[in-house]
């Protein structure tokens, strides 16, 4: 039906058009950006209709297949929530102290910046892009480069902004990298060390660190019914059961003076390696991974003039350190705190790096 020449012409036209479009888009083209924005509006009602059609089917399927899993997960989460409530009270107090210290020292932190709450409305349909789409955009003050977090930590940065939508590049994408820091101390959990249990902790700190200066005192307290969020504190009380309103004698280990171990701050660059893969941390000082950093250490954003995120946003935890033979450096793998597979509500930190701000 078609001559060989016709076929070749069609193919050549397709390839050349693609190359031209890629070049135009890579150089930044207002017409293409506008077309994208317009297309997003056209596709939105079709997506909504497809979602509405699929919802009953999806729910029925989930009801049949995932009911038991959901029930057991629910129980596990309730248990976890009880523990987290206790930790939350402690963390809130620490955050307040931290903010006060930052204020005194005139330092910047993530707490200085406003956030815009958003919901994840879609994810990349492709296997090669680790992105999600959120329902806030330029109208809400979102700009390219801003960090995006969820309750657990950093999830990525804004790469494209439309009027009411934005595309977020996830931290696991190979194209994502950010300045990160690891704060570690000699009491940080390390390779081969046992995981501290509840009985060995006092307010999150191992009792062994405090024994040199800890005295056991007996205090008399009158307990009142506590609000639920304040109940399960992580203390080593010896009282078996406490009845509200009843005066009891409780032996509590109270530190009289504490020798805090020195905290070491190591900085480097964290890079994604693809979905389901841990991120890779490269230290500025390559020997850091071998000497001072241990498995279990917390990694957070380092900040800085060129960084796209302010200091102190938690990213993840070091899960693996592999010493390289014949080299002083090591491969450090970091697992993100956030569950990137089930993102729902997120927050865009309205932070513009100093470099970008000067550029504007």
């Amino acid at each position, binding site marked *: 039906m078609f001559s060989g020449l016709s076929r070749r012409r069609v193919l050549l036209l397709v390839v050349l*058009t693609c190359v031209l479009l890629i070049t135009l888009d890579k150089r930044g083209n207002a017409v293409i950006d506008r077309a994208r924005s317009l297309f997003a509006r056209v596709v939105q009602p079709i997506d909504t209709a497809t979602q509405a059609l699929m919802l009953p089917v999806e729910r029925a399927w989930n009801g049949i297949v995932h009911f038991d899993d959901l029930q057991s997960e629910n129980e596990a989460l309730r248990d976890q929530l009880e523990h987290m409530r206790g930790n939350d009270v402690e963390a809130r107090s620490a955050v307040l102290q931290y903010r006060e210290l930052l204020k005194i020292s005139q330092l910047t932190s993530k707490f200085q910046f406003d956030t815009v709450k958003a919901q994840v409305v879609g994810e*990349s349909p492709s296997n090669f*892009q680790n992105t999600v789409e959120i329902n806030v955009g330029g109208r809400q003050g979102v700009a390219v480069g801003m960090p995006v977090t969820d309750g657990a930590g950093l999830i990525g940065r804004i790469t494209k902004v439309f009027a009411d939508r934005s595309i977020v590049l996830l931290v696991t994408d190979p194209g994502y990298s950010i300045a990160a820091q690891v704060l570690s101390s000699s009491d940080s959990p390390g390779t081969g060390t046992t995981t501290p249990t509840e009985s060995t902790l006092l307010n999150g700190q191992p009792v062994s660190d405090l024994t040199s200066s800890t005295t056991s005192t007996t205090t008399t307290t009158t307990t009142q019914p506590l609000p639920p969020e304040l109940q399960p504190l992580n203390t080593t009380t010896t009282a078996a059961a406490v009845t509200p309103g009843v005066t009891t004698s409780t032996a509590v280990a109270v530190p009289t003076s504490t020798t805090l171990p020195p905290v070491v701050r190591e900085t480097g660059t964290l890079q994604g390696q693809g979905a389901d893969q841990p991120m890779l941390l490269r230290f500025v000082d390559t020997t850091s991974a071998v000497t001072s950093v241990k498995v279990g250490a917390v990694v957070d954003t380092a900040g800085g003039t060129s960084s796209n995120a302010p200091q102190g946003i938690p990213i993840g935890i070091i899960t693996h350190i592999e010493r390289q033979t014949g080299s002083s450096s090591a491969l450090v793998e970091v697992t993100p705190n956030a569950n990137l597979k089930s993102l729902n509500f997120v927050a865009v930190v309205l932070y513009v790096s100093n470099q970008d701000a000067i550029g504007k």
Partner: protein
Amino acid sequence: MRNIILGPLLRLVPVGLVALSIQRVIFGAHPIYGVKLQFVLALVVAAGAGGGADRGAVAGFVLGLLYDVSGNTPLGLMALAYGLAGMTAGYVHSFTPDPQWWLASIFAFVGAAVGEIAIPVAEVITGQSGWITSDARITIPVVAGFAALMCPALMPVGRWMMGVKRKKWKAMLE
């Protein structure tokens, strides 16, 4: 050539929008063992297997362009990859003008594999992130297998979309 490109556009765009929506809402949001099945790619290779290499290339270009506009990839990247996929699948017509379903499925498998491999390759060439990672060992055969399975069902849609009428062979009268 004008007919090949302009003729089916009226059908390609609306069908493409629906296919893209199905991809985003169903297959993109529900990966199977970490692999997102590619419905649009399956439609492209089915159009190629049903209409030939040139029509497959055009279908791949248009549907890929829609994919690019809706996503985060540079405009033209998926169009190039899907154009290659459609063209490869369409080469089945070099063997027979009316391929049987299983032969079309084989070419759809190859075409989809080519299209899926072409994405990270094109990303690297255009300075985007990514390269063929170890995950591709699973991703590519699964995506290609899905396209091959869907090919017999999607081929009539692909043919209609590209304005191809199935040939009716008649025995020669003596």
